[in-house]
């Protein structure tokens, strides 16, 4: 078990490091550097910068140094001062710009996972226990549709239907009076009122996946001798199913969460744009279009971190839920 923990932890740190490399690469991808962008903003507001001053600025920010020195400097700032650079568009440090949006992205992702679990597991169980029933076919059909239609298309269709049928456009995560105000009880309730549409839209594919996996695993378990034995001994059907096979079939539900998470975060970017949510998605698109690279790189870095840490947590959860992994690792 310790072995497993150590391996996963090392893996997490390597993955985090890979994310920093990729983010730094993306920050440095566009032509020109920080100073070019800075000068462009200054010129836009009317002040002129001459070539000498530009060179001085480059030396000041260390942009004349080789790329790996810049990377180490950027890493040092990030680790020691939680400083991800400066956003030109917002004229604020990147961390301040994205703090709330990142939190909302995280809340949305967690809400999605809860939604996926609460819908997929019961439906998957019903599908398996009542195999080839109307419910089974219905859920299978819905699962296929949910899987095949890309997230942003579901978002568009949902928006269209709400607009045509209920004459209101679902956008954002808050009512106007709660946008940009400090957190309060009312704001949380407002968030709960609004979050369900993006949650359902984003969770469809994951729900379909998990439902199928639960069904397949449970079907495997249901035909095993221990189930027949318990049934022969007169255990009540539902108690039997819930107590043994379902418990076993749930393990993949947790390991699958780690697998779904990157897709969920990817999807939240596009769904965020379509439904104009105050998550990091629309901000990332805008930052990339405006070439506000520290902001864009910061967002990519942090959502990468979020995903990697989320994957790690679900691995640990699996360790806690599934004794087989614990024992196997402990024995070796």
């Amino acid at each position, binding site marked *: 078990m310790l072995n497993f923990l150590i391996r996963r932890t090392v893996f997490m740190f390597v993955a985090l490091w890979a994310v920093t490399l990729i983010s730094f690469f993306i920050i440095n991808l566009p032509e020109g550097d920080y100073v070019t962008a800075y000068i462009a903003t200054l010129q836009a507001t009317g002040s002129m910068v001459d070539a000498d001053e530009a060179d001085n600025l480059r030396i000041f920010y260390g942009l004349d140094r080789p790329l790996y020195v810049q990377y180490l400097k950027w890493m040092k700032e990030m680790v020691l001062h939680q400083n991800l650079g400066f956003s030109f568009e917002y004229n604020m440090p990147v961390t301040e710009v994205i703090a709330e949006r990142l939190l909302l992205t995280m809340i949305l992702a967690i809400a999605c996972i809860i939604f996926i679990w609460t819908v997929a597991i019961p439906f998957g169980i019903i599908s398996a226990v009542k195999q080839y029933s109307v419910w089974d076919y219905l859920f299978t059909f819905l699962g296929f549709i949910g899987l095949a239609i890309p997230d942003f*298309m579901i978002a568009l269709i949902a*928006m269209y239907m709400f607009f045509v049928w209920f004459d209101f456009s679902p956008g954002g995560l808050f009512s106007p009076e709660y946008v940009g105000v400090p957190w309060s009880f009312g704001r949380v309730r407002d968030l709960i009122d609004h979050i369900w549409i993006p949650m359902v839209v984003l969770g469809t594919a994951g729900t379909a*996946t998990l439902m*199928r996996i639960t069904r397949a695993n449970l079907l495997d378990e249901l035909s095993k001798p221990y189930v027949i034995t318990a049934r022969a001994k007169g255990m009540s059907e539902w108690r039997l199913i819930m107590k043994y096979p379902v418990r076993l079939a749930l393990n993949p539900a947790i390991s699958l969460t780690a*697998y779904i998470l*990157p897709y969920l975060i990817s999807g939240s970017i596009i769904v965020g744009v379509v439904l104009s949510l105050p998550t990091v998605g629309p901000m990332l698109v805008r930052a990339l279009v405006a070439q506000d690279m520290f902001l864009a790189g910061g967002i*990519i870095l942090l959502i990468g971190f979020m995903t*990697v840490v989320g994957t790690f947590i679900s691995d640990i959860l699996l360790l806690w839920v599934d004794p087989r992994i614990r024992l196997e690792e402990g024995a070796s």
Partner: protein
Amino acid sequence: MVMNSIAKIFSKGNVPVPVSQDTNEINSIELATQRQLIWRRFKRHRLGFAASIVVVLFYVIVLFADFLSTAPPVDYAAARGYMPPQGIHFFHDGNFMSVCEVSGARNMESYLMEFESDCDNTQGISFFGKGYDYKLWGIIPTNRHILGMKDETVDPNAWIHLFGTDKQGRDVFSRSMHATRVSLTIGLVGVALSIVFGIFVGAISGYYGGIIDSILQRIIEIIRSIPTIPLYMGLSSAFPEDWTINQIYFMITVIISLFAWTDLARVIRGRFLSLKDEDFVTAARLNGAKTMRIIFIHMLPSFYSHIIAQASLSLPLMIVTETSLSFLGLGLRPPAVSYGVLLKDAQNVQSVANMPWLFLPAILVVLVILALNFMGDGIRDAADPYQEV
């Protein structure tokens, strides 16, 4: 998005096993080549087979996009903006098929064009009629289209807009045909590239095993644990402004396949692991064949079908990725036409509610993605009916 692994689960319990009673058929099964066996099994997978017909139809569109179009995809005419789809009338005024003449006038309050169909005056249209000039496959100059005006003297009030027009008055149907060409070929090129990556990494990983395998597997795991859409966005936003459509098109396929090869690599690695101790591989090795020869001449052909199955399951994923990127404005840009570029027009609810025909390309996207998934599923089942999930 999680379709590849999902399709594996869907296929469970859905496995067609060849059943045969009479001896003739048994003999033919014994004599049939691997390819014939796979083909037979695939035909039994009804859903997969039906889906493959839809896929073939879509690739017919890819080949004949210009022929199927009724108007040049980039020709704009502001006076025809947001025109609703026209129906084709059959057996009207002595014509087998005809469209009503449409006249438009600008509403001076909303500044939108308002159109009125005048079905007393119809224009006959016919199959293989004449339209705009184009070169079929870039070589054969022609002006024949699947639908064209019967009367060659062009009436200014007669057009064929089966899916209506967009804001600039461009024909949505013709644009959809061209978008199909672009989006579906991006998928193909991307899959081809990731097959190359996937075979290379998968073969090394599976054949050598040991420490090389562990390292490559960890790298794949890291790539899979990072959300890809933000990365694609970051990379594609760095394309210089002055790049041509073709350059952007090519780079997008490269970027997408840069991360999409991992699924293929995993499948190929698994096959290599299970095959490397087979007798025929040992025999080849004892005969002094070089490693590369063993991998590419002896081992790889024995699971071509798996590669094809996995590739056809990656195809819809690539198409969705390209569509998403272009939809966000970070992939292909106008004047290029792809599904994403078309759907960008449908991003605004108001415009979709008033002009629902802008949403028609979405139906094509859903259809092609569903069909590709079912087909890939069918091929995989046919390739290896006894494969454990």
